[in-house]
């Protein structure tokens, strides 16, 4: 087999070439561009200066959007965790013959268009949406409640998008735990709750943290829920990038914001990898199909 050392490289070359030219190099371009200047006439001038970064941190406007992004991401992670752990635990424990069917249902949203899932909340939360319609019909309120175009609505959209990721990450972790461990704890005198708290919960933490990281990263990089369900004050960092690049064509500044976002996420992912190992996420993702 010694003379075959080149074989894996032949097999790998198409994907490596693609990722190198279509991901690595373009991202380097973003970083390089973030130091360029934008002339008043809209032309980009090659340069090496930190003006774009200075502009970002010049006043509180841009950093506050960054803070909003982090706050929304954190809120989404916490809600996803609460809403996701219990169904995941249910799948782990249940002996129902409908389990495969229920699992498919959880994965179904992966296959439903993100934009449809996001805008579908307008039908529920809008002035003439389902909730207001029912509340008005039963005379609980006299005028529609304003539930759309605020942070709550944005988080609803994000949860809808991200909850399946969380449930699956936790479930894969739980599924690897030998059920007899909790039984052993109970036979030694633990209550059901103690057995869960002392045995099952700690063993499921890799999945929990993988889910949290994935949800956090995906929240930071999305602009659709704030755009469709949010109001003017709910912009997130990705909305800013979208506006700068597509709206005002300010490539250097847009690149600088992108670089800041990447740096921020790199720090988070790096810290995570240091303590938890990134492989857990990939393990779950390969189970998704």
């Amino acid at each position: 087999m010694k003379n075959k050392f080149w074989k894996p490289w032949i097999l790998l070359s198409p994907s490596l070439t693609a990722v190198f030219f279509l991901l690595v190099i373009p991202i380097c371009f973003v970083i390089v561009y973030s130091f360029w200047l934008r002339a008043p006439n809209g032309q980009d001038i090659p340069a090496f200066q930190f003006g774009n970064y200075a502009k970002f941190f010049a006043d509180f406007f841009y950093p506050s959007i960054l803070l909003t992004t982090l706050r929304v991401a954190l809120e989404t992670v916490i809600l996803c965790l609460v809403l996701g752990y219990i169904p995941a635990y249910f799948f782990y424990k249940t002996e129902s013959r409908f389990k495969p069917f229920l699992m498919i249902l959880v994965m179904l949203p992966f296959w439903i268009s993100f934009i449809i899932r996001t805008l579908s909340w307008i039908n529920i939360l809008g002035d003439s949406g389902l909730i207001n319609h029912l509340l008005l019909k039963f005379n609980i309120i006299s005028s529609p409640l304003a539930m759309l175009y605020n942070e709550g609505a944005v988080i609803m959209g994000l949860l809808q998008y991200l909850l399946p990721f969380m449930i699956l990450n936790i479930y894969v972790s739980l599924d690897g735990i030998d059920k007899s461990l909790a039984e052993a704890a109970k036979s030694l005198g633990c209550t059901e709750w103690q057995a869960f708290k002392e045995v099952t919960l700690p063993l499921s933490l890799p999945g929990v943290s993988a889910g949290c990281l994935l949800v956090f990263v995906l929240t930071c990089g999305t602009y659709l829920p704030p755009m469709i369900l949010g109001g003017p004050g709910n912009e997130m960092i990705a909305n800013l990038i979208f506006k700068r690049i597509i709206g005002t064509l300010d490539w250097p500044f847009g690149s600088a914001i992108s670089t800041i976002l990447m740096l921020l996420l790199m720090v988070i992912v790096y810290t995570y990898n240091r303590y938890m190992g990134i492989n857990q996420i990939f393990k779950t993702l390969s189970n998704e199909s």
Partner: protein
Amino acid sequence: MKKLISGWSLIKIFTFLVYVWMFIPIIAVVILSFNPQQFGSFPMEGFSFKWYVKLSHNSTILEAFKNSLVLGSCTAVLATAFGVPAAMAFIRYEFRGKEFLNTLLIAPIMVPEVVLGVALLLFIRWLQQPKSFALLLIGHVVLTLPYVLLIVQARLVGIKKEYEEAALSLGANPFQTFREITFPLLAPAILAGMLFAFTISFDDVTATLFWATAQNQTVPVKIFGMLRNSISPEINALGAVMIVLTVSMPLLAGYLSRRFARGNHKT
């Protein structure tokens, strides 16, 4: 013991509520698409296929559907053509830098899509190429490649190397071995990878909005454009069509792979 049972039923009820919460908006889209009213909202006043008929006469939407289907299919084929050999390399061979390269190829999942969108667009702009179908295609291949790789790798780990070695020792060349042994065993994963790639490509909007042009609009991009003037019953109808289309995919795949597996078993 009584307390334990009530705890478990609480878990059941909570899980049920999460399901309700997850599916009510989607069901509402489908129901409202049959509302003949001008505004796509409750209450329902009758039942009609009016918006579907209107949709089928809208040539820009049909065009977008065609674009999406072509793009999704091309993406699925290319991503698998790239991903399967790479998965073979990672699972069947030992070489230096394997871990690093595997992480690199899966990295696009962890790169925020908005950055991916900006990066590729910037690069194309620097090359002074116009936005085109090719840009969308290569972008979608990068987006979907990691998923294909993960799915195929996971399956390949479960296929014993000995089968391939036996074929080789009986005189088959590496290509014959792949065609006769590895490929049939791997086929369900390849199919799953292709479907996953197709669906991701078909549904993607975050990065696609950066890359699409007026001529190359996909369905989600078209919906995004229509949303500017608030939600209409036509959007609900289009959404319902998309839901039925993409949801039937995995179900079809499950059915096909089961049939395929049975067929293999016989021979």
